[in-house]
Each structure stands twice: as C-alpha cells, then as structure tokens.
C-alpha cells in the first residue's frame, strides 16, 4: 500500500481502481458497523447513567455481585467483584488468542489460525457460561426480574425490628448507603420493618422499599445485549473456523482477511465489556 500511495496522488486515489482508505471493502464496512454498534451500546450506557444519577439510592454492586454467585448477598463466602474479574480475564484471554490467530493468518499458517481460533471459541464459551451462572443466581435465587428489583440501599439510619433468617437479625443497625436484599419465600417478597433512628423522621417505623425499578431492566438488557454479541461472535467464529479448516481462505491468498474481520468484531465485544464492567461493577 505504501508503494501505491507514493505513485498515486491524493486526488487520483479517489478516482477508482484503488483502495483510498487502504482497507478492503469488507474490512472498512466492519469498522463502520462497529462504529454504529458503539453508538447503540453508548445509548444504553448513557441511559443507565442518566437513570442512575436520577435515583436517590442505587444497588451497591459489591453486594449484588459477589465471589460465588451461589452464596446469597451478605452471607459468608461473599467476596465482592472477584467473580466478575474472573469473567473479564476470560474475555481478555480470548482477545489475546484472537490477536494470535490474526497474526498466524497474516503469514498464511493454517495450523496456527485453527489452534488459536479454537482457544478463542473456548474463551467465548467460558465467558457465556459465567454469565449464565450469574444470571441464574440473580433470577432463581435472588428473584430479581426485569421489573422488580429486590436490591436496595438505605437512605437513612435505622434499626431492624425483625430478622430475615439470613444476615439480618432483630436489632441490626444500618446507616445510609448500606445495601439490602428483600428475600422472597413462599412466592412473596418479605420487606422487613425498621425504625428510623436519625433525622426528622426519628422513631417512625417503615419497611424496606424495593430498589430503583430500572436496575433490573438496565442490567438484563445491557449485559444481555452484550452477551448476545458474544454468542453471535462465537457462532461466526465457528463458521469461519470451518472455512479455515476446509482451506477456503488459504485459496484466497489474502492473509486470512476473514479472520481479521471477525477479530475486529471480537475485540469490539471486549471493548464494550470494559465499559460495562466499569459502569455496572466497579463504580
């Protein structure tokens, strides 16, 4: 490309017969697709931000997402953030193997492309498995739905008047910002009663209110949309892997460009996860 651009002037580059952007049509369009997808994800994440700042309290991520999704929040065995960090590393690992596959493709090494693509697919499936586990815990054990959010955070100080049989007992005190989960048993959510101990409303008995309603919808839609991207990425990786093995791309002699294109998509999925991880789990 470098030699071409020295011969052809800037004006002539756009007159046809050359690649003015230095990339094939397919690769260029993959970039523009990713740009449009970036705007879709940004719209979701900006909506999340706007709704989050508009609420007086927000579920505490360290409480909602714990080490082992098997243990209920607040109970022993819960370590914040570690499980989702593991998920992040699985995705980062698959990003690295994808880079390696593209590099092997550039030097027409079919064996190398195959091996590294298999690793990438394993990484993608591992990530999806982790996400399925996390969702299963949230839905089946903690009873969060798209419209009901049992995860809340206190906005005042108080003392509980009853226990929930898990981490809260009668007399447990809390301060603003302390998280809670409204447990559901026998088909009903049990909102615990508490007495306010500070401020204008001291002495008034209240019950735990449900957390911001938008939380469930935002969480399931955004991580679901991302997970769907991972899933379709795995499907495309499989299709391209079959074509690699059958020698279709070797015939084209273009440095396995199809692998490079799916590589762009795969890194984009990782890129989006950086921001989902930041906004949902870290902040």
């Amino acid at each position: 490309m470098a030699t071409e651009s020295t011969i052809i002037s800037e004006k002539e580059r756009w007159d046809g017969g050359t690649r003015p952007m230095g990339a094939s049509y397919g690769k260029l369009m993959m970039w523009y697709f990713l740009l449009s997808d970036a705007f879709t994800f940004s719209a979701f994440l900006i909506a999340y931000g706007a709704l989050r700042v508009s609420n007086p309290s927000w579920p505490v991520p360290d409480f909602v997402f714990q080490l082992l999704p098997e243990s209920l929040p607040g109970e022993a065995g819960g370590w914040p953030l570690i499980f989702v960090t593991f998920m992040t590393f699985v995705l980062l690992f698959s990003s690295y193997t994808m880079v390696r596959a593209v590099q092997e493709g550039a030097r027409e090494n079919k064996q190398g492309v195959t091996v590294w693509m298999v690793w990438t697919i394993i990484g993608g499936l591992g990530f999806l498995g982790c996400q399925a586990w996390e969702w299963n815990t949230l839905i089946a054990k903690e009873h969060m739905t798209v419209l009901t959010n049992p995860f809340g955070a206190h906005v005042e100080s108080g003392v509980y008047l009853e226990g929930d049989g898990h981490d809260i007992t009668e007399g447990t005190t809390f301060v603003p910002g302390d998280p809670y989960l409204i447990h559901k048993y026998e088909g009903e959510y049990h909102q615990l009663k508490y007495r306010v101990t500070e401020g204008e409303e001291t002495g008034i008995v209240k019950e735990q209110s449900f957390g911001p309603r938008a939380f469930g919808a935002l969480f399931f839609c955004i991580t679901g949309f991302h997970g769907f991207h991972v899933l379709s990425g795995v499907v495309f990786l499989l299709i391209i892997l079959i074509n690699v093995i059958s020698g279709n791309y070797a015939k084209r002699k273009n440095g396995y460009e199809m692998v490079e294109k799916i590589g762009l998509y795969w890194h984009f999925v990782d890129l989006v996860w950086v921001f989902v991880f930041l906004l949902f789990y870290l902040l």
Partner: protein
Amino acid sequence: MAHDYEKSKKIALSTILLLGVITIVEVGVALLGKGYIVEGWHWPIWLMGILMIVLSLTKAVYIVFEFMHMKYEMNGLAKSVLLPTFLLVWGVIAFLYEGNDWGNRRDLIDNKNKEKIEEIGYLKYDAPDELLKDYTI
C-alpha cells in the same frame, strides 16, 4: 516478514499483560477505596471514579489501537471511525445533567407530597359547572 511476526507477537503479549495489570489495578482501587482490604479506610468517591474511568479509557485505547490495529491503518480510516465517537462526549454531559435534574425534581415532588394544605370551602376556578360537577368540595 519473520522479524515483523516475532515483533508483533511480542507486542500482543505485552499489550495483554498490560491490560491484565490495569484490570487488577482497577479492581484493587475499587476494593481498597470501598474499605474491603484495610478496615475503615475509604477513598473519596470522586477520586475512585476518576481513577477507574481513566484506567478504563486507557484499556479502550490499547484495545482499539493495538488489538484492532487502528495504529497501523491509514489516517483517513482512523479519523472516519474515531472522530464520530466524540459526539458521545456531549451525549454523556447532556444526559447526566438531565438525569441529575430528574433526581432534583424527584425531591421536589416528595416535598410537595409532604406539605399539608388547609381545607378551604370553595374552588377558585372559572370553569363551566359541568366540568366541576365531579369534584366534591
């Protein structure tokens, strides 16, 4: 060619290690700042926020420029993809401002709901009688 291959292999490895380290630092900042590692030691929320946003953007830059090879693309391609994303800067500012205002209005509505109003015997309203007949005053 063989030399380029070895070099790019090295770059990929160092980039992924860097991304891993940044992720660990981010999680470390989150755990440390929220008082999980050292009992009772909390960082101000704005400091944690700035640190984590800057680190995440660094990760994004490395993914786009190294892994997605944007660094090695032609200037025109890079600009046509990257420049439009700057529109999002205004999107973020505008919608966070808007969201903050929704929050302020929420307080206003809560306060209005708590206000006691005096019972007065009439409704001062110049509407036709048929429109008012449903209201018991």
